[in-house]
């Protein structure tokens, strides 16, 4: 068996103010798998995500990314971990901070020490993968929201990550942008962990879903089965859109 992209075992974490966000989370994501991470607000989803690349550390348990353990204090290792885990944050205005799209996509790989033609090739490839080549020289604030979200994906793709982590990728997108984002993500071969409230999107994109609630994994299975379990959804404040029946969706 190949090394899984992500292996989280017994992860527990409490913030400095004493609020405990995670109570022993176990999660394994195989290479090339697409997993939706579902859960109500305050379930600990963001806390979990920030553990995956070592922004938060210091609790109990361990996180391995493609076999490499996340360890605080080891700068070299942390750099490699952050290359392997590409997080696309929810607000593209937080994600895109450089004066032009091209500079922003180059930011990650340049931090990894790439430069010159290699760097340019990475940037071109990442922008092409999300269909945003033509906006490369524009400032991020001149793009539409959907375009900014896709450029956000390119900024981490340029680091050639082991796993792509998307935090609420469909929030604030109009239906057409949402479908375009789906097309982009569906075409990527990379392992994906999609944190979302958008249950139909999870069903469309991910074979498997994990429900996090109250800092624990309460369900882990095929997305179609998880979404068909009405009691489970109700117990954890997850709700399907009005009129949406996951069993009626042709797959």
């Amino acid at each position, binding site marked *: 068996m190949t090394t899984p992209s992500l292996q989280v075992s017994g992860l527990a974490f409490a913030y400095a103010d004493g609020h405990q966000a995670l109570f022993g989370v176990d999660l394994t994501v195989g290479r090339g798998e697409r997993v939706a991470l579902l859960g109500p607000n305050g379930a600990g989803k963001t806390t979990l995500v920030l553990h995956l690349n070592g*922004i938060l550390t210091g609790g109990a348990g361990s996180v391995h990314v493609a076999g490499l353990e996340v360890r605080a204090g080891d700068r070299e290792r942390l750099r490699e971990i952050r290359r392997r885990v590409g997080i696309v944050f929810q607000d593209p205005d937080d994600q895109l901070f450089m*004066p032009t799209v091209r500079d922003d996509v180059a930011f990650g790989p340049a931090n*990894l020490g790439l430069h010159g033609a290699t760097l340019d090739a990475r940037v071109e490839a990442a922008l092409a993968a999300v269909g945003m080549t033509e906006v490369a020289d524009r400032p991020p604030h001149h793009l539409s929201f959907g375009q900014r979200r896709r450029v956000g994906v390119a900024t981490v793709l340029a680091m050639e990550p082991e796993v792509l982590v998307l935090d609420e990728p469909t929030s604030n997108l109009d239906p057409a942008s949402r479908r375009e984002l789906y097309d982009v993500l569906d075409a990527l071969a990379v392992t994906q962990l999609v944190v979302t409230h958008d249950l139909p999107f999870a069903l469309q994109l991910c074979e498997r879903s994990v429900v996090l609630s109250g800092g624990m994994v309460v369900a882990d299975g095929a997305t179609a089965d998880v979404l068909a379990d009405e009691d489970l959804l109700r117990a954890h404040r997850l709700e399907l859109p009005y009129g949406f029946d996951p069993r009626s969706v042709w797959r």
Partner: protein
Amino acid sequence: MSGGLTHRLHRPGDSPVHRLPAHVKVLALLAFVLVVVATPADAFAAFAGYAVLLATAAAMAGVPGTVIARRMVVEVPFVVFALLLPVLAGGPRVDVLGLSLSESGLLAGWNILAKGTLGVVASILLAATTDARSLLVGLARLRVPARLVEIASFMVRYADVVGDDLRRMRIARESRGFAPRHLGHARVVAQGAGALFIRSYERGERVHLAMLSRGYAGSMPLVDATPAARADWLRGTALPAAAVVIAVATWALS
């Protein structure tokens, strides 16, 4: 939200002035301003020469005079001060159109007006022919401390985002019937400013997280670093060099 701060200043084009590397232009501006400032106030011919130089540069860059004139509004407070000097300063006085004005005040006022205007016009030319990003790269090449360049870069990127926040908060206030009429309403506006500060601060934290996640380790990578060719340096020094010639010529002839 339209154009954005930097795009209101920059006028895209492909003139010889536009094509010069930004750091060459910044140095040329600095040298030109130094020559202008070092010129004695009574060397009127020299100032006329400088003005002709700037007009030539503007024509080469294709920046219309009307655009320059509109942007010169930033100079107004200094103009007011310069106009007050002849009235307020002491010393021997002369009569101009029935007004008794101070001679030294006239000269001092002229000094501020002429040098200020030349500096402002030269800066307007730089801003109109250089986009914000090249300017930042140029500053970095000139070894301006990296922290300052980073701060300027974030300002360029987020001025519009924060401006948008501000506009949305104002619309939300006004939609609930708030119309500032007297000074007592300043409190509400101040609270809005406070909220905006907190929001921007939190955004700063999130941006920092996003940077760390992409391997930021304390210094920005310099992405674009094409060095300037010798020809660019020669073209770039044309303006300050001509200014030096004028300065020396008027000094030698006087």
